[in-house]
């Protein structure tokens, strides 16, 4: 085997966002020799951008709140496609995980009596999100980062892990490269925790950073693990849309949680027209009740501005397609006329700053222009609910890269809590597994083959530009695998992806291996295209509309499909898709979800709202 520097650990954690750091802290505390490896500098992972808060039924603001209601909200918000056990563990453990952050120095906003303040968010019955203004993710990642550093956990910064190494079907390590020097690096590890986030950079309009290239999903797939529900992508309803350079940038749901409302170009609060039957019992059908709800949740139903994200994103899409959109093709988000300026600046300081600096809009005086932006993927690596173990021995996954927790649609605020709850569980289980395992053998032939693939873009002939291919990929996914999907377009997307894949093979990278973003992108494109294909094929397979997956040609939810996961795996070098039944909750939890026949209720009423395509 070629000479590659090798590091040896019990547990390596790939990714240093909330899930990765929390996993590393736990694995280290359990006595495992642990390292965190991240593509960026420490503290810059996507968690830093989370704004609104961490959902946890602390009961500090509404004492009626408890894990059972949080569980109910999560399962219903996910259109019953979620894994009940994950939703249960999440709802039960989130409060402890938030309080633990406080033990490590986090400073959340406070209630009048000195406890952690909680704010309203979409799909949550009670004000439930622990937060710090609108920069909760920064508080969370810095707290975890400082705690991890204080524990002496090894961190490999600006180091990209690209392939998992396997030994007879179990994980033996990983191989990647240092971004700074371009040198390859090999990790021998008994267990690997993937915490690499999503694949948002496959779309043009996205809130995600360059890091979100589907690495964890691609590596897991390659190593033989299952992915599920990859068609379930979340378009966050409120992204910035103007000027073009900021298109997609996130505008926190906290704007609506704190009193903001959506309006179309003629000033109408249009969300009242889009309340689906499934949520009618929880949702106000008139403006007066909706406005009273912020102060009095006992006697009023929630404003439809805070319906789950999939509903709001589709409604915005419909308004715009119907010609009721704004100049730049979005709708208005108004908090200026609804809350005093000093309140807005105190609660939403970074939104104020972001619009003022980047769009010349003063949100205390003017409406924001917003539209949907690809934000999150509910699908990902199939995991055991209790241990976060993937279907390959020694492999674990937590956070956005894992699937099941959020079903067909994630509620706002449930991501940060997911990272903490399942990050901890993954770290715990990985350390436990490592204790009882011997190190896997490194297959030199496999390592050599991966090493060759990593440096290949320098050797190849061809004149393709990786940046141009990336732009075409983003346009294709945006146009053909967007909010509203149909068969012909998904098939067209797949054909397009094949052409792009062939072009990637003709990318020739210029320059040296030292900090060369063209090279990095050439490698990332393989993951982006590979995972885009899984998304498109899963979307083609699921012939219904549910949560983050809306089919124009199958506009209704189908109770049969509501009991099935779409499973993707690689066998004999080919991507194979199938469906498998979703574990159904025990009777006591089914009762919490409510409705006699909830699957039928999701499917009844009006068809999914579809605005049609241009």
């Amino acid at each position, binding site marked *: 085997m070629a000479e590659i520097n090798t590091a040896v650990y019990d547990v390596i954690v790939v990714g240093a966002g909330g899930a990765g750091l929390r996993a590393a802290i736990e694995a280290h505390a359990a006595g495992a020799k642990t390292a965190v490896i991240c593509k*960026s*500098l*420490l*503290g*810059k*992972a*996507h968690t*830093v*951008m989370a704004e609104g808060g961490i959902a946890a039924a602390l009961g500090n603001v509404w004492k009626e709140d408890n894990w059972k209601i949080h569980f109910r909200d999560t399962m219903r918000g996910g259109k019953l496609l979620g894994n009940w056990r994950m939703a249960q563990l999440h709802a039960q453990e989130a409060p402890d995980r938030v*309080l633990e952050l*406080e033990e*490590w*120095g986090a*400073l959340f*906003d*406070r209630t009048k*009596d*000195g*406890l952690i303040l909680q704010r309203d968010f979409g799909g949550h019955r009670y004000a439930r999100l622990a937060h*710090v203004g609108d*920069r909760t*993710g*920064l508080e969370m990642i*810095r707290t975890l980062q*400082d*705690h991890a*550093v204080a524990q002496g956990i090894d961190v490999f*910064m600006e180091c990209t892990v690209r392939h998992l190494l396997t030994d007879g079907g179990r994980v033996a390590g990983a191989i990647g490269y240092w971004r*700074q020097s371009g040198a390859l690096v090999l990790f021998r590890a008994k267990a690997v925790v993937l915490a690499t986030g999503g694949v948002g950079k496959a779309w043009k309009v996205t809130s995600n*950073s*360059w*890091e979100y290239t589907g690495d964890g999903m691609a590596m897991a797939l390659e190593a033989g693990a299952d992915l599920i529900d990859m068609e379930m992508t979340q378009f966050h309803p409120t992204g910035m849309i*103007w*000027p*073009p*350079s*900021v298109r997609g*940038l*996130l505008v926190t749901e906290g704007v609506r949680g704190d009193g903001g409302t959506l309006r179309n170009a003629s000033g109408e609060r249009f969300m009242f027209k889009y309340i689906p039957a499934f949520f009618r019992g929880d949702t106000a059908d008139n403006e007066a009740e909706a406005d009273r709800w912020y102060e009095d949740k006992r006697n009023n139903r929630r404003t439809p501005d805070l319906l789950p994200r999939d509903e709001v994103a589709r409604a915005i899409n419909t308004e715009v397609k119907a010609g009721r959109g704004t100049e730049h093709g979005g709708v208005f988000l108004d908090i200026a006329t609804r809350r005093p300026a000093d309140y807005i600046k105190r609660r939403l300081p*970074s939104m104020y*700053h*972001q619009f003022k*600096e*980047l*769009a010349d809009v003063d949100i205390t005086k003017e409406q924001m222009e917003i539209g949907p932006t690809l934000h999150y993927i509910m699908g990902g690596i199939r995991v055991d609910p209790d241990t976060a173990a993937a279907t390959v021995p020694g492999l674990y996954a937590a956070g956005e890269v894992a699937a099941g927790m959020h079903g067909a649609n994630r509620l706002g605020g449930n991501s940060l809590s997911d990272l903490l709850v399942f990050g901890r569980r993954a770290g715990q289980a990985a350390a436990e597994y490592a204790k009882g395992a011997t190190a896997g053998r490194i297959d030199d032939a496999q390592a050599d083959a991966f090493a060759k693939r990593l440096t290949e873009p320098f050797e190849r002939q061809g004149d393709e*530009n*990786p*940046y*141009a291919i990336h*732009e075409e990929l983003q346009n294709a996914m945006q146009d053909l695998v967007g909010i509203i999907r149909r068969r012909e377009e998904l098939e067209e997307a797949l054909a397009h992806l094949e052409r792009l894949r062939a072009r990637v093979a003709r990318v020739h*990278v*210029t*320059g*040296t291996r*030292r*900090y*060369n*973003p*063209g*090279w990095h992108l050439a490698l990332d494109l393989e993951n982006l295209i590979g995972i885009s294909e899984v998304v498109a094929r899963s979307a083609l397979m699921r012939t219904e509309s549910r949560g983050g997956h809306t089919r124009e040609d199958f506009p209704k939810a189908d109770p049969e499909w509501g009991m099935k996961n779409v499973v993707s795996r690689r066998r004999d070098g080919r991507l194979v898709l199938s469906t498998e039944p979703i574990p159904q909750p025990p009777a006591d939890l089914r009762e919490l979800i409510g409705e006699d026949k909830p699957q039928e209720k999701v499917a009844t009423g009006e068809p999914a709202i579809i605005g049609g395509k241009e």
Partner: protein
Amino acid sequence: MTTEAPRTATEVRMKIWRGEGSGGEHVEYVVPLDPGMVVLDVVHRIQATHAPDLAVRWNCKAGKCGSCSAEVNGAPKLMCMTRMNEFAPGEEITISPVRTFPLIKDLVSDVSFNYEKAKTIPPFKPKPKDADGKRRMYQEDVDRVQEFHKCIECFLCQDVCHVIRDHEENKQSFSGPRFFVRLAALEMHPLDANDRLDLIRAKHGLGFCNITKCCTEVCPEDIHITDNAIIPLKERVVTAHYDPIAWALRRMRGKREDFAPPQPKPPSA
């Protein structure tokens, strides 16, 4: 090295530092300009169309992660929050890497100094909980610490601090404004029970700072680094070490002088 001049008002001419280690030069590029663009957008466009191996750090593109720090016409800034319409049409725009840290390549510097300093800070240590097992803090008490927690670790304050910018030899014994903010956040945390005052003076070199406020001026988060973090820390250190009553109390409580006093080299600037 020069390419052509901008042909229309919708084009921009930008000079970007290209080079590895100690060698390099500013290279000029011309690319089209779209409405609302920030400096980072232009850098990305240059990367996509002219210089695929141009090294630049970035993540959030929204002023939240602090990755894309650079010197824009000599001023330390986040490239993602610097609008192109801040420049006069035809104005020459020059982008250089932050200069206080060693260059890796192009616009990327080796900022590991900061991550090494972070390891030397004694962590948060919570006081006991209230009798009912809860922790109570009041908003008015956390406000000032939350200001410090806004820090996005862009290290622009470190870049501009002349104690280390112009004096490599001071890096050993001076941690810089970012870490005074961090230390102030810990010291003023309502629940923290750790004592770091000796360290702040002896190991982190607070005495080197002569309050020129350069750090405060460049902070993209508008943290009042000098007034709210550094000066109060200096006052606490003075009280702890030079107020005889406070000194005696600390002795009685068992706090020890673990570090020799620093020998600061006063900055020449």
